[in-house]
């Protein structure tokens, strides 16, 4: 016969260490009521490399119907939560000479031309959409944004091909490729899944844990003094970098104060249903993160971390970056033994057929991700319903590096702001304007994004 353990005993753990559970305060409840039915929207960027074959992103239909192009057939059963975009280009990239993939990568989420870094390379010149949204939708005790990568780093000197996100000019935010590192970062330390109001009484921290936390906070206080004192003595460019450093130290402190001290709820801004937050199992058996043959295992493990991070509102904005710009992945699991980028420049029928297989495979990964999000209840719908996914690549057509008709799409419901099952056709719209629309769909007032030179205002008919 199995002994029945009380919830409190379970929480106390084998070592007898009591674990603190943040709880939903009365304050939070009031805030939620005041905000009406505003849902906790999440934003996610889904990136795949090397664009698509010419014509592969062209759908048919309109505002009430959608027929998917061949590579998107994996999305068929979820197309009512999917919006295909045609005719949205990357005007800034067209004005930006340089290595086409680096140009694409540095322009894709910034909406700006890159900053020259010598040779044919450059770095992103402004904040990216994902980081901006994360800033606008902060989660108390959480992360501003999280970047999940799958083999997104080169084994040696990292250049701009690897970076999708930027916090500002020349300030790349690297994606983390290792699911175990991501697990520790997002779900480790003193963090525990939050519980709904009334589900369990809060449990105090073990005194030794509390002392350690207090010390950690004191240490960070001392560190902050050093940064503050230095900042007053610096010129403007140096100051910007050091201020960013200080802000990140403060973010750590805010997070540990929130998670550990039991002062908050861990539920974000008070919306959403924390009961659906499950701490994921620590990832194992996903293989080496630099072994090209383990790409699929890496991806699956990362996706679990990503979905849990969004479900638990560890952040409201994340990226899922599959490989890097000008990717050299060998997609052997779909029978392609040639590296992706070299293949993407071949126009013969055989090569195009192989590329089609690769592109279809990535769209099947998009489907998996959407399906996983759709299986998590969130608020009065699913996590997918409350998420807005931006699908993108660094170039339009792989073979020509065209930026005029980019493989952009939206998935998820943006908390009820976006209706799916539609094809939206534009005539040479800019991705800047698409991003302004995305900000608005996320509930963030905005009239432009990125370099205003490319902004005319939000795209018509998107919401």
């Amino acid at each position, binding site marked *: 016969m199995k002994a029945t353990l009380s919830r409190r005993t379970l929480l106390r753990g084998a070592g007898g260490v009591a674990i603190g559970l943040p709880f939903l305060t009365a304050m939070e409840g009031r805030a939620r009521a005041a905000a009406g039915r505003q849902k906790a929207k999440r934003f996610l960027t889904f990136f795949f490399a090397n664009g698509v074959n010419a014509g592969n992103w062209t759908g048919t239909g309109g505002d009430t119907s959608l027929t998917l192009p061949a590579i998107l057939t994996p999305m068929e059963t979820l197309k009512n939560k999917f919006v295909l975009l045609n005719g949205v280009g990357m005007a800034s990239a067209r004005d930006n000479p340089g290595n086409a993939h680096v140009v694409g990568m540095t322009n894709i989420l910034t909406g700006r031309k890159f900053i020259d870094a010598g040779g044919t390379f450059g770095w992103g010149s402004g904040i990216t959409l994902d980081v901006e949204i994360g800033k606008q939708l902060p989660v108390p005790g959480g*992360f501003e944004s999280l970047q999940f990568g799958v083999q997104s780093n080169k084994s040696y000197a990292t250049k701009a091909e690897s970076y999708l996100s930027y916090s500002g000019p020349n300030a790349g935010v690297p994606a983390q490729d290792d699911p175990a590192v991501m697990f520790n970062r997002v779900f480790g330390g003193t963090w525990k899944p939050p519980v709904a109001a009334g589900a369990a009484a809060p449990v105090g921290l073990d005194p030794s844990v509390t002392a350690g936390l207090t*010390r950690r906070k004191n240490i960070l206080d001392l560190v902050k003094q050093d940064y503050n004192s230095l900042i007053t003595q610096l010129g403007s460019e140096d100051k910007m970098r050091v201020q960013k450093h200080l802000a990140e130290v403060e973010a750590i402190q805010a997070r540990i104060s929130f998670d550990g001290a039991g002062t908050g709820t861990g539920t974000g801004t008070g919306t959403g249903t924390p009961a659906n937050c499950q701490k994921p199992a620590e990832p194992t058996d996903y293989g080496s993160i630099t072994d090209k043959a383990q790409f699929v295992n890496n991806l699956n493990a990362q996706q679990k971390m990503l979905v849990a991070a969004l479900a638990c509102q560890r952040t409201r904005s994340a990226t899922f970056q599959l490989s890097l710009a000008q990717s050299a992945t060998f997609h052997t699991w779909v029978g392609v033994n040639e590296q992706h980028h070299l293949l993407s420049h071949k126009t013969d029928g055989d090569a195009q057929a192989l590329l089609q297989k690769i592109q279809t495979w990535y769209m099947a990964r998009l489907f998996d991700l959407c399906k996983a999000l759709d299986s998590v209840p969130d608020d009065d719908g699913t996590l997918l319903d409350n998420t807005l996914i931006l699908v993108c690549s660094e170039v339009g057509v792989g073979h020509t590096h065209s930026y005029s008709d980019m493989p952009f799409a939206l998935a998820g419901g943006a908390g009820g702001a976006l209706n799916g099952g539609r094809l939206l056709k534009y005539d040479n719209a800019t991705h800047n304007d698409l991003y302004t629309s995305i900000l608005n769909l996320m509930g963030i007032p905005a009239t432009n994004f990125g370099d205003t030179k490319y902004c005319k205002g939000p795209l018509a008919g998107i919401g």
Partner: protein
Amino acid sequence: MGDLKAGPSPLRRLTNPEYANTVRDLLRLPALPTVSLPKDSAAFGFDNNALIQTPSSTLVEGYEDSATTFATQAVANLPGLWKCDPIRDGEDNCAKMFIADFGRRTFRRNLSPADKDRYFAFWQREKMAADPNTAYQALITAWLQSPNFLYRVELDSAGPVGATIKLTGFEIASRLSYGLWGTMPDDVLLAAAEAGELATVADVGARAETMLADPRSRGSLTHFFNQWLTLAPLADLGKDLKVYPAFKPEWPGLWRKETEMFLDSLLLGGSWESFFTADYTFANQQLAAIYGISGVTGTAFQKVKLDGVKRMGFLTQGSMVAVHSHENQTSPVDRGKFIREQLLCENMPQPPNNLVIQVPEIRAGVTTRQRFDEHTAVPLCASCHLIMDPPGLALENLDAVGVWRDTEQGIAIDATGKLIGSEDPMVDGNVNGPIELANRLAASDGIKSCAVKQWFRYVQGRAEDSVIDTCSLDVMRAQFKSANWDIKKMMVAITQTPAFLNRTIQ
């Protein structure tokens, strides 16, 4: 210093290798610690460029994790870090001594009295909350995250904005140690700084010479050459076994070893021109067999005489010709681009970004030259490729795995090439084959001025300013020349420049 201009002196964060080296030396660890931080980014060729050192959340979190780990290690070895007897000297006095002495090594300068008081107050509070060692651990954890440790702060002397001022001894000590050793100043260098022994240009030059002769310069120099000569791809270089069935995964390691030993030999003295024209290389039996050199036996690398007909200098080494090739064929474009950008420091125009960059597929009976000629026939491409490809075409005898070939697709190799557009009469002209190419480059001014620029970028952590830094580059070049192009003398010469010795207040 009159109208002296030093150029920008951006605040520099330690690179990952510098961080690991510094932790090892500061904590007197027996070996280099494993550090898990996001990779450094590179701009203008080097991963220490201050321009792209804005920290990310992952980096700052990584610093906290590392600080916690290393402080735990440090506190287990406190007596090894500073000598003090709490019973004889008093606990508080010991803490004060620790803050002054270990703090000086951590910050690479003396602490101000106010800072000492602040850190002592912190230590006292943490001691009350726990115990003295826990308090030391907490202090070290904080210091390893402090900007005074993670950044190379140069603020010890002040002046009006725009003024160019001389750096202090401690600041010079750090510039020397990070520039030449990739780590913090050692006790000797800190003592020299404190004693005013780094006050004159001659002092600094003599110190630099000693430091470059020290084995501790090796890691930093290797890191410099790895980046300048783009050797990093050797780490995971693969080739198409259908085209190169003899290729073995260990070949790139042989090429790296060859180039490293070759560079070591050049650093012993002699003219930098031999980088191109040396009639020797280093090989073991396996590498010699790849190169078709007979009479070399065993696994140990040895100095090997070259015939000067097929092979000579770096340009004919695998580290050059195999890295700048595709997996299944040579790349005259990559090879030419490398020569232009890395060895001559020429800025290639950015390619039009709608350009369809397609490596011509291998076809029976058609040589690489013929296939690449097709794309230079397109006017849009030709403007750049006429500059880039011809020097690369002079290396066509060396295939994508460094093996000499006389024919390709049954057709005799045409290794004629041409250098144009450099505005240097010593560079521009026709060449036929690797030897002529190497000789022409060796004699040019361009490769010497470029070596100067690359070293400047690496040591200063920024690209040169085309106006303000002219003087500094001229100083380096002049000293390089008067030393008969001894590369090590040029490396010392940077310490004699306005850019190295001064700072302009921002």
